């Protein structure tokens, strides 16, 4: 193993060698630089391999042949090796990326680059405090030099600001060092740490002050929130490849330096570090909201991430040996992602966020961009996810809830502005000039993306080894979804066949080992998904990006069912959220809605994370915080904590089922999605939320919080959601939005059923799950088919399509009969069970609201079928063909399914009924033969179907016979008060269909909720917009900010 000192020696030697070369030999100089960087990378990679694989202990390297306290020593452990690897690798790739800039400036710039890398590696390796100062100064000066690489002439001013601030920092650091030396007698960090313990009380106060100055200097290097204007200016104006080094390598090195320093200061300074870290994380993220320049946004984001890692370091006393796992996970994710994003920004010409739409022509770049964003936000299979989970678990165990809340709030904001940016890239119109595909950049980006995934695997493996968590990347469903990324070159129909085969195959493999309840959800997720995927055969071409996203969603859902412990459940939850986000984003105008969907879902997911963390903490009883927490153990959560856990989890799941107040994302997301995506999202995805609620209620049952019965509150929420969902659906003019609002209403029904907490209530909720899937997917498909043919979704622009699109009409007819609960079909079954359920339950008032929402459901369904299929046919729709075959086929399958389920509901419900007995022994149904009876009433579906069928057929045949000679007339042969109708558009009544209801109950549908959420987002935005004026751009002001920051922390530290 080559000694780590050669990393520094090689860089220096190469830098000096470059001096010897003539100015013209720039190619040779560039080659030497690359060689040196590659050598450094190889050494650190070698060390990392040694430590990671053989688990060797950390090695000390002495200089000048004498033991540490008296000479400078370097230590190489796993952390140092990994960090030097990241630093040198980033430098190497950045060198590749800024090849032309380096060649333009000549060998001097290359020398400075080498010295910069040397400096960062030095900061990581050295154990001597003064040596650390020297390397920091080296880094500062080389940054000053490398800024000249940028073609942005504002970079000079940024460089100067940086030098001013580094002067102030060096003053503080030097004074701190010398007084610390005076107090402890040594300059070696480890020596200083031991000496600090045994310091005599007299000079302890002086040492504390000296340490404070040193600590403030190093923290200032970490660009803390109030005092980081200078860093943002560098990020914005420097050459993007250098910004990558500055953010990834500089950030990593400075963080490790602070970590080493914290060893000296002991636990007294950890709260200060946490405080500064959290303020930076939340403040920088908040101020990033109104940013429009991409590099400045990345600057804010990197400052925030470093703040987060500082917080993690500040929690070292609590995290114990997990600190490495969590801090390194976040750090590596940040470094790889930030470097990758900066390299991407070097490709894009325009600087606004929407200028990145130029990436659209290159699927590989889009994939890389998505990987980096997921890395940064910490979504599953990436290391950030495991780190975030462990952090939340430990923080909850220690009762630091406020800190956890702040971190999650900051993470949510970060996810918002990052995925808003991703939305712009996918949806905004492409700028004129395409991206400059320099080979160096592309290589760097690809390497970064691959490293991201490899890190994901490594962290999964580490989590598996250390904590017994399942490695996500080894989960079969997720692998299947990611395999589709490689199959993107296949035509769409082959991929579709593969997908359907995969879904059905996986179902056939594993359906055996589930209890009836999970089995029903499993059937809906997989078999239901396969049937909807049939509709995807209508698409032509390759449909790049559709199948990975869809399969990711399905993978998430299957893993949700399979999950036994909270980690598996939460990982699955986030996977399906990400998958569905990318799926919804494919719609033509779906960008803002997909973003609101993601923000709500991630908000909900973070609540669930907090809930699970609280549940696992078990703090009050002194039970040791659990490493893995099985879902079923939710029942044993201690009393004072259980209601809070229930509350958090319930709200989290209710964001997914769009309960009132959290519903505003649903109409846009479901309406604007593609034809075959809407049924997937509406028919299947909402059930994931319900499944979560089932699990929650199954394990935790009724909970009391301050005397209020939480399930009673859920009952009211379900009822009001049902009422307002249906009421809003009535007044919609857009067909898909109508169906989306109706989904909210139906989910309100299911939530109500669940909250009844009795046997039949749950059975009703399950019945709704099945029914809602069938008819909602059918309705969405048929409306999608009609919208594809007519080119519009506004109902008043359609009309009279019954003759042209008969099959769609039949599907919608059966759909609305079933959905409105009219007897012969399965909807009635749901309503019948509902009635029996409410008779059993002891509550009275919420039923009133549900009764009103029942008939209202009938109204908007009729509006849907009337305005689209009946009424007057427009001129331009005269030559319409039936909806594409592949969209009609699933509808016909659903019609058969509905009829079958109407006649024999037992096939699905019987076994679930017995399964429910273990939760609610009394009040079950008994399935004697054809007749289904409950303690209150009875219901015989087959008899009803036969009777109604016979009556109907006899009358129908009779009327047909009598009117066999009737004269077939056309659309304007109507009695129009002896006048002639003017045009089809003016005689088709569709606009403002239920005017009386709007006059009578219009006040109920005022958009209060939208205004509420709008107000929150606006305050955040305007607040951030005002706050960011704080960075006036004046270098001197930045130095004053820094001084003010130091004084403020001093006053604050003195205060505690």
């Amino acid at each position: 193993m080559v000694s780590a000192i050669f990393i520094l020696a090689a860089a220096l030697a190469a830098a000096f060698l470059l001096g010897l070369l003539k100015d013209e030999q720039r190619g040779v100089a560039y080659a030497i630089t690359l060689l040196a960087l590659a050598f450094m990378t190889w050494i650190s990679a070698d060390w990392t391999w040694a430590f990671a694989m053989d688990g060797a202990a950390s090695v000390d390297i002495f200089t000048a042949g004498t033991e540490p306290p008296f000479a400078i020593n370097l230590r190489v452990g796993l952390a140092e090796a990994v960090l030097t690897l990241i630093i040198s690798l980033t430098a190497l790739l950045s060198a590749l990326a800024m090849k032309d800039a380096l060649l333009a400036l000549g060998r001097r710039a290359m020398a400075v680059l080498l010295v910069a890398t040397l400096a960062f590696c030095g900061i990581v390796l050295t154990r001597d405090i003064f040596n650390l100062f020297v390397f920091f100064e080296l880094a500062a000066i080389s940054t000053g030099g490398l800024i000249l690489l940028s073609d942005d002439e504002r970079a000079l001013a940024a460089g100067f600001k940086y030098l001013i601030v580094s002067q102030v920092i060096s003053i503080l650091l030097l004074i701190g060092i010398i007084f610390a030396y005076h107090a402890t007698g040594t300059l070696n960090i480890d020596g200083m740490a031991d000496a600090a313990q045994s310091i005599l009380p007299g000079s302890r106060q002086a040492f504390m002050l000296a340490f404070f100055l040193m600590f403030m200097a190093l923290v200032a290097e970490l660009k803390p929130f109030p005092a980081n204007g200078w860093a943002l200016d560098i990020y914005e104006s420097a050459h993007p490849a250098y910004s990558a080094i500055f953010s990834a390598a500089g950030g990593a090195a400075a963080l490790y330096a602070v970590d080493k320093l914290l060893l000296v200061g002991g636990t007294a300074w950890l709260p200060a570090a946490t405080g500064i870290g959290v303020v930076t994380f939340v403040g920088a993220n908040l101020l990033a909201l109104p940013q429009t320049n991409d590099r400045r946004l990345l600057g804010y984001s990197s400052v925030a991430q470093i703040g987060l890692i500082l917080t993690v370091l500040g929690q070292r006393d609590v995290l114990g040996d997990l600190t490495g796992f969590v801090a390194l996970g976040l750090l590596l994710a940040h470094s790889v992602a930030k470097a990758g994003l900066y390299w991407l920004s070097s490709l894009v010409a325009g600087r606004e966020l929407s200028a990145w739409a130029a990436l659209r022509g290159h699927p590989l770049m889009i994939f890389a961009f998505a990987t980096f964003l997921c890395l940064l936000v910490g979504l599953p299979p990436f290391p950030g996810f495991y780190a975030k989970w462990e952090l939340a678990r430990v923080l909850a165990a220690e009762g630091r809830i406020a800190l956890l809340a702040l971190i999650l709030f900051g993470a949510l904001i970060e996810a918002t502005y990052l995925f808003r940016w991703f939305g712009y890239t996918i949806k905004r119109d492409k700028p004129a000039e395409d991206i400059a595909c320099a080979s160096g950049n592309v290589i760097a980006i690809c390497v970064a993306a691959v490293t991201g995934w490899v890190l994901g695997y490594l962290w999964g493996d580490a989590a598996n080894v250390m904590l017994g968590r399942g490695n996500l990347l080894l989960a079969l469903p997720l692998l299947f979804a990611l395999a589709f990324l490689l199959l993107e070159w296949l035509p769409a129909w082959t991929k579709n066949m593969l997908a359907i085969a995969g879904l059905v195959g996986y179902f056939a493999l594993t359906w055996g080992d589930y209890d009836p309840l999970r089995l029903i959800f499993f059937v809906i997720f997989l078999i239901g998904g396969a049937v909807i995927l049939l509709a995807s055969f209508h698409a032509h071409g390759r449909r790049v990006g559709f199948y990975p996203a869809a399969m990711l969603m399905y993978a998430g859902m299957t893993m949700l069912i399979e999950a036994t412990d909270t980690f598996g459940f939460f990982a699955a939850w986030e996977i399906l959220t990400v998958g569905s986000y990318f799926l919804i984003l494919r719609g033509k105008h779906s960008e803002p809605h997909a973003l609101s969907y993601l923000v709500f879902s991630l908000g909900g997911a973070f609540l669930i994370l907090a809930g699970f963390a609280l549940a696992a903490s078990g703090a009050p009883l002194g039970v040791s915080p659990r490493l893995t927490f099985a879902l079923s153990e939710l029942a044993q959560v201690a009393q004072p904590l259980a209601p809070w856990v229930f509350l958090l989890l319930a709200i989290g799941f209710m964001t997914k089922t769009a309960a009132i107040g959290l519903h505003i994302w649903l109409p846009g997301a479901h309406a604007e999605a593609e034809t075959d995506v809407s049924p997937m999202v509406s028919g299947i995805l909402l059930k994931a939320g319900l499944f979560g609620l089932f699990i929650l209620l199954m394990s935790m049952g009724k909970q009391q919080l301050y005397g209020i019965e939480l399930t009673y509150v859920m009952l009211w929420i379900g009822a009001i959601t049902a009422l307002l969902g249906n009421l809003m659906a009535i007044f919609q003019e857009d067909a898909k939005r109508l169906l989306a609002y109706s989904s909210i209403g139906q989910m309100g029904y299911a939530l109500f059923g669940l909250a009844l907490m009795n046997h039949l209530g749950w059975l009703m909720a399950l019945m709704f799950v099945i029914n809602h899937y069938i008819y909602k997917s059918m309705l969405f498909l048929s409306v999608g088919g009609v919208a594809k043919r007519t080119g519009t979704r506004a109902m008043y622009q359609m009309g009279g399509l019954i003759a042209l699109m008969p099959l769609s009409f039949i599907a919608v007819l059966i759909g609305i009969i079933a959905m409105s609960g009219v007897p012969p079909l399965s909807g009635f079954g749901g309503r019948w069970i509902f009635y029996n359920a409410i008779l059993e339950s002891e509550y009275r008032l919420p039923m009133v609201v549900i009764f009103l929402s029942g008939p209202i459901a009938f109204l908007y369904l009729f509006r849907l079928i009337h305005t689209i299929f009946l009424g007057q046919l427009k001129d331009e729709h005269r030559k319409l063909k039936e909806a594409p075959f592949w969209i009609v086929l699933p509808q016909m399958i659903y019609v058969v399914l509905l009829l079958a389920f109407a006649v024999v509901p037992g096939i699905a419900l019987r076994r679930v009924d017995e399964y429910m007995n273990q939760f609610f022994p009394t009040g079950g149904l008994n399935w004697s033969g054809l007749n289904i009876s409950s303690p209150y009433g009875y219901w015989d579906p087959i008899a009803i179907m036969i009777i109604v069928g016979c009556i109907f057929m006899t009358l129908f045949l009779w009327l047909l016979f009598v009117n066999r000679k009737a004269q077939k007339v056309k659309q304007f042969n109507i009695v129009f008060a002896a006048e002639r109708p003017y045009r089809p558009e003016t005689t088709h009544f569709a606009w403002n269909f239920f005017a009386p209801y709007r006059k009578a109950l219009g006040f109920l549908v005022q958009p209060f909720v939208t205004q509420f959420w709008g107000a929150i987002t606006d305050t955040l935005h305007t607040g951030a917009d005002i706050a960011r004026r704080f960075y006036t751009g004046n270098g001197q002001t930045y130095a004053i900010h820094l001084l003010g920051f130091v004084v403020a922390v001093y006053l604050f530290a003195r205060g505690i």
Partner: protein
Amino acid sequence: MKPELMKRMVKGPDGQEFEVEPLRDYYCEAAPTVMPAAYIKIVEDFFNWARSESIWILGFGTGCGAIEMRPLMTPRFDAYRYGVQWRPTPRQSNLFIISGYLSVKTLKRAIRSYEQMQSPKYVIGLGSCTINGGMYWDSYNTIKRLDDYLPVDLYIAGCMPRPEALLAGFMDMKKIIRAGNAEGANKYAENFDWYKANQKQVIHDWDMPDYNW
């Protein structure tokens, strides 16, 4: 011809251009056919009896006679006793009372309503204006003989017959129906061209199909 009835080219949502001919596309162009009576006489008599007992009048008042029909709904005359009823739509009505002078413009609407009624349908003309033009005999814009344009079953004379006269008229109408002679619809169908020619001669802006179903 009004612009909305002109032939025009229309582009479908999928970009396909095709021609829309309103009169052909919006209206059914079938000509009326003679509706045969029920198979056997006894059934036809029975139906005629039922038709006579429940005469539904189309609420389409033209000219000054319509005001005479209002008293029939009041307690004093009460036509409901005789199974007579007023229906707002021609679809559901059997009897069309042309109550007074018929300007050409109203004739066009009367023809459209008459043709939208289902056979068997009957027409009663009130007052002299429907018989020979009455006091408007030399007017340029009224029609002189209703019979040229619609098959009339009964005329009730009187320059506006009083409600009692109307009731008497209804009684006569019942007799005609019961006797089976009220075949105005079939007469109209048989001499359809003759009627059409007369009507088109008077109505110049003929912007509707020949037979308004």
